[in-house]
């Protein structure tokens, strides 16, 4: 591989290494611990008792979902869509992309790099592919934690493992999409801080809308436009026939965002 590309990859890695390593360990641990608790505690009766005390409207909407998460399949799904896991992975996407491609008065490294004979097209492509690679690593960390826990406390089942791989791939695509729109805003806005603020706001608002649209019928139509609704780990675990279509939509939107960002970055003023 070319020394300039290797040097740039090393620079991205070094500048994000602590956060990536922490996230890998954290995500794997979340999966492992959730499955461990699921295996060692009698959770189902406790949850059923708790649900029986809640209003009927809530239990009608969420009761089945919560009960389904008590199984091993549900726990794996829950681990990947846990708000902290999603926040952490989203934060890594923003951090790697925005910090390395955006610029502001405190961050002039992009100017220094591009004053060298290093092509912008190569820079954005390497950054994008490497960040995708990190997302794969994070997803594999979750798989590792889950697989280890299943091996230790349950039984490795080929069907379960296949479903888990599909959920992992769905999770990867969701984060690739989030990373791609963060890239888009980072090349679109002049200021990195603005790009991060807008990207984070979109993630937060869409995540929130996705949750409330589950029990507000009048918001059900938003599901079609909400990228979080294209990530359905629980449904995949119980068998879901739209998984392929939804993942294809995420992949296409991700590709469109990358191509658009690539074109904008080539014309962008670096200052």
């Amino acid at each position: 591989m070319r020394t300039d590309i290797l040097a740039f990859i090393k620079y991205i890695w070094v500048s994000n290494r602590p956060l990536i390593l922490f996230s890998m360990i954290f995500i794997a641990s979340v999966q492992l611990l959730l499955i461990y608790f699921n295996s060692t505690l009698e959770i189902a009766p406790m949850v059923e008792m708790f649900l029986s005390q809640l209003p009927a409207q809530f239990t009608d909407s969420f009761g089945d979902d919560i009960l389904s998460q008590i199984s091993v399949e549900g726990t794996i799904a829950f681990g990947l869509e846990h708000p902290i896991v999603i926040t952490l992975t989203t934060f890594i996407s923003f951090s790697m992309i925005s910090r390395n491609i955006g610029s502001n008065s405190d961050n002039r490294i992009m100017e220094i790099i591009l004053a060298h004979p290093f092509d912008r097209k190569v820079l954005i492509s390497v950054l994008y592919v490497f960040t995708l690679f990190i997302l794969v690593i994070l997803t594999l960390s979750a798989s590792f934690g889950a697989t280890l826990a299943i091996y230790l406390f349950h039984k490795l089942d080929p069907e379960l493992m296949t479903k888990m791989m599909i959920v992992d791939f769905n999770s990867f695509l969701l984060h690739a999409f989030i990373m791609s729109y963060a890239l888009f805003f980072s090349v679109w806005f002049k200021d990195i801080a603005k790009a991060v603020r807008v990207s984070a706001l979109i993630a937060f608002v869409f995540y929130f809308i996705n949750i409330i649209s589950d029990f507000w019928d009048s918001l059900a139509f938003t599901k079609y436009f909400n990228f979080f609704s294209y990530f359905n780990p629980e449904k995949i675990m119980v068998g879901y026939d739209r998984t392929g279509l939804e993942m294809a939509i995420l992949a296409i939107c991700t590709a469109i965002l990358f191509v658009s960002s690539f074109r904008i970055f080539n014309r962008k003023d670096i200052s």
Partner: protein
Amino acid sequence: MNNNEIIRFSSLSKMYDKHVGISNLDFSIKEGEVFGFLGPNGAGKTTTIRLMLDLLKPSGGSVHIFGKDVKNASLEIRKRLGYLPGDFSPYDRMTGNEFLKFSSNLRQINYSKPTILLDTFELSDRDLNKKIRAYSQGMKQKLGIIQAVSHRPELIILDEPSTGLDPLMQDALYELLLGLNSEGSTIFFSSHNLPEVEKICKKVAIVKEGKLVGFESLESLRKKITKKLILKLPLDVTAAPQLQGADLISNNQNIFEYRITGELNSLFAQLARFRIEDLILPAPSLEDIFLSFYDKNQKKKTQ
């Protein structure tokens, strides 16, 4: 583009949202020159440099370097130049040594420790092994200069290179640049400090508010600049002496400031009549230079 022109600006303009970055820049720099690019902060110097490096895209006109349009051959051009940005702030989690290796790798050249340059700028191995975040501004600047020149580029672009350097290191920098120039490198030296430009440059362009207000050899610039004279006479002298070839600008008790408009010989002959306590010929400030050029430009326009 003439054969020995290394940089040619052709009606180069850069507009930002509401203000002018640079407007209709039109001049060229010859191979082998040490060229000074003078202007106050915000005049458009850095914008011009970033246009040369293809970091900014022009709103109009073009820049040709080594006979090639920066827009189409930026990568090829960047292989042949070295650049020190203003307020040089590299990635501070690297050590100095790692940064120099990083820079060499981005150029796809083998890294060899630039021992002579490190000695010149008094950077020890211990300094190079420290994280850049522990560096002073002066040390960062030295590192930036080394990364800009260590590969012996044909063209060296420096944006305010003496920032943060003490006077001894500034002299070392000027000596280094003159040495590189004698070996064939062309130097584009951006600064807001006339005395340092005077030390090494033979030709200068002067910009203010995004416009080229002067393009001169340093010798002709010196002639054009309005010089000043400050005269300190004994305390009992309160009336300003009338001098031919000098206009009184201000007086503060026994201290008189003049703008020199005539011959220095005749002026000093007149001064011999007075009991002078002190005499100062201050180096013209950048503002004095701009005033000289602006006055002339304004006069040309009104004629």
